[in-house]
């Protein structure tokens, strides 16, 4: 019997429909104990729905969930957890004003008489888990005071409160930097060694190929097949996912660089960043690479007039400028595609066109009224140019896919005809297909003469789109690389602060 292992979890013919949509259409999926099974699919392919079925948040209309050989019905996340299925959410699912320990045991705080919380047990248990995860904080800390990475650790710690049979990681690295990812991968390997079946959802091919044993692909709510990682390659997976191959080659044509458009000299905003100097020329893509918190986003915000620098100069076309507010920046031709699409980039309740024309709506007037024609013209132009998929400009952006949402934000700023385009984490949470489109778009923009700054925490992304790469560590620029000379090793060293000694 034990020769052939039972799967830790098996889903058979899962069907889930919502009004008007068949979200899952007979999906099969299984994960063996001690296996990392990656689940792939574009946004909207049904991964999240499948995970919610697995976590007991949705009831499947048809099909069976089999855990350890027994068919089960799970109606709440707690029941799922009791069955040994734990879910680590993509978006941080923590309560900011509570302690880490309470967050770890949220929903099942240990009890004493009269419904009191057993604090001692709570802290003992959660500290044990945090130690196992090599965390340098204790369970008593309030979550709001923790860094994003440490908050992610709290999220992961939740998975270890029970004897998990199956752990589902839903985009766990979305807000982690490369260094922090290493820790996460160790944990996953540790769980794997203990015989836990792991479902790993991610858009990042490199992670999937490093971690997983098998890959299952979903498309449009239906099952497309399972591949053994060792026997496949990115191209095959991508084709299964989006139905075609991707052109992953970097635009090799040497761009013709123009004049220096933006120059920054000794810009300082303590304690976020110090003594920042760099320049960007027309037709050039400069990548900013570093850990989260290295000060990259803050520099962008300063250039966009959202922060005031303590000292330093900003020059546009060689002339010194003062940027006191976003309208100042916009007037100078600086645009910022912000890091957080949903919170900073879009008004989710507004339609596509209105979002796109928002910064210039004041100028698109016909008498006192907004000129619908001018707006539509802009929208149509950039919808076509960026290949935004939306049924109509009237569509609320909330319902668009992440990639299309991001294109709306990019279109919003392109339509302003900027000199300098700053793009912060352009592909966070975006699926592979759209990601590659956006990368090509950034290259194309540079080729048209824009000065582009790309801020990213993903090394492949920076390497792919940049002409030059600025490596930052802890608020300082460590090194600048040209695309030809950069190596992954030297880049990792620079952003970890290792180069400091050698340079000094």
């Amino acid at each position, binding site marked *: 019997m034990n020769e052939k292992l039972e799967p830790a979890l098996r889903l058979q013919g899962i069907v889930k429909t919502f009004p008007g949509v068949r979200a899952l259409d007979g999906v099969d999926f299984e994960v063996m104990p001690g296996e990392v099974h990656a689940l792939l699919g574009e946004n909207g392919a049904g991964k999240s729905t499948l995970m919610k079925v697995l976590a007991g948040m949705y009831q499947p209309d048809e099909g069976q969930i089999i855990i350890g050989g027994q068919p089960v019905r799970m109606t709440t996340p707690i029941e799922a957890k009791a069955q040994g299925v734990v879910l680590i959410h993509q978006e941080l*699912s923590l*309560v900011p004003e509570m302690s880490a320990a309470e967050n770890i045991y949220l929903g099942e705080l240990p009890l004493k008489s009269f419904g009191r919380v057993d604090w001692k047990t709570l802290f003992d248990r959660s500290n044990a888990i945090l130690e196992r995860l090599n965390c340098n904080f204790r369970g008593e800390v309030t979550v709001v005071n923790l860094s994003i990475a440490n908050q992610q650790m709290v999220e992961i710690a939740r998975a270890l409160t029970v004897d998990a049979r199956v752990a589902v990681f839903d985009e766990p690295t979305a807000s982690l930097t490369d260094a922090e990812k290493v820790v996460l991968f160790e944990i996953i390997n540790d769980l794997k060694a203990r015989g836990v079946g792991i479902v790993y959802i991610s858009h990042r091919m490199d992670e999937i190929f490093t971690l997983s044993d098998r890959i299952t692909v979903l498309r449009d709510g239906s099952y497309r097949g399972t591949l053994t990682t060792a026997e496949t390659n990115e191209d095959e997976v991508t084709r299964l996912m989006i139905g075609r191959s991707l052109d992953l080659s970097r635009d090799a044509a040497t761009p013709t660089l123009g004049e220096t458009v933006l120059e920054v000299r000794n810009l300082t905003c303590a304690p976020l960043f110090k003594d920042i100097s760099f320049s960007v020329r027309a037709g050039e893509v400069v990548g900013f690479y570093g850990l989260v918190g290295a000060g990259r986003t803050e520099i962008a915000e300063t250039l966009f007039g959202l922060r005031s620098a303590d000292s330093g100069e900003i020059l546009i076309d060689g002339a010194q400028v003062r940027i006191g507010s976003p309208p100042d920046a916009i007037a100078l031709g600086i645009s910022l595609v912000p890091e957080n699409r949903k919170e900073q980039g879009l008004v989710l309740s507004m339609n596509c066109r209105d979002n796109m024309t928002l910064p210039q709506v004041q100028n698109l007037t016909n008498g006192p009224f907004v000129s619908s024609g001018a707006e539509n013209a802009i929208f149509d132009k950039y919808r076509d140019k960026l290949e935004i998929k939306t049924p109509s400009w009237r569509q609320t952006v909330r319902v668009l896919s992440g990639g299309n949402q991001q294109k709306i934000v990019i279109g919003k700023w392109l339509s302003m005809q900027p000199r300098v385009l700053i793009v912060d984490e352009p592909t966070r949470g975006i699926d592979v297909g759209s990601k590659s489109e956006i990368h090509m778009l950034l290259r194309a923009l540079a080729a048209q003469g824009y000065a582009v700054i790309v801020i990213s925490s993903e090394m492949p992304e920076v390497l792919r789109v940049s002409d030059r790469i600025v490596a930052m560590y802890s608020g300082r620029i460590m090194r600048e690389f040209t695309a030809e000379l950069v190596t992954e090793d030297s880049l990792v060293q620079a952003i970890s602060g290792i180069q400091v000694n050698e340079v000094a």
Partner: protein
Amino acid sequence: MSNLTDITPLRWLMRNPIWGFVLLVFIFFSLMSDHFFDYRNFQNILVQTSTIGLIALGMTLVMINGNIDLSVGATLALAAAFAVDVQSWAMFATWGNWQILPAVCLALLVGLLMGAINGFIVWKTGVDAFIVTLGAMLGIRGLVFVYTGESSFYAMNFAYSDFSALSIGPLPVLAVIFLLCTLIVHLVLSRTVHGRNTYAVGGNREAAVNAAIRVGPHMMINFMIIGFLAALSGVLLSTQMGAATPNLGRDYELWVITAVVLGGTKLTGGKGDIIGTLGGVLAIGILRNGMNLMQVPAFYVYVILGSILIAVLFLDKRFNRTADGGLRL
């Protein structure tokens, strides 16, 4: 909770600016009025605060949940009407002083019921609590008028109104009940699973749902708690009056919310505590009492209370600025 010990008094005061304010007005009135710093006046303040205070305890829970309850004033009036009226029902005529017991129980039950109705509607319809309870504020007041037929009820039994004059040791019984409730709600909020879940539901509802906290019933329980406390407050108020009037408790919801917000509870939920709320209600109570003693004309009292409310909000924002790191939004 457990890291309270290593906080210096000054840091604690910075985090709870309302207690600094309480201290300030306390010293101010002690210097300015010779009737203020008097043991019996402190008793008065506690009794006067208890009405708003009891409701504020419940409001703290509801607001940490990310909800709000505007119907408490009307619930208070309805409970007071029941508490006074039921005593005179014929079926309890032979019970002597014991006739008060079923009356009070029924009144508290009515409070629970009103809270349950609000909570249930919020839970099942998903309509914002502000809207649900704004409606209930009108509706329950309508019920009060239907029940009382517009007139006041009067307690025949003087034992009822004598109750409010009782003292336990050095403290008036009303103050004791208020302080006791404060302690209980504080313990519930800080020590029990229900209390901790209150923060979870308000701080991150998604997370609470994911952690299988039954958010709907949880919120309903908190609405029932505030309904109960509003009813208790109504009963205690009616013992002070020996009567119940249909217009009782008008505008109380606004003062209760004010006190709770002054006490540092966030309107968006997830943050707040009973210690702050106690500071908030005491601040308003002391201000009113002190201004009475100093004979500030009624017209100026409105302006002073309104301005102080805004000023404290402003100071609180200065002290507890969120860590936006200077981003100009």
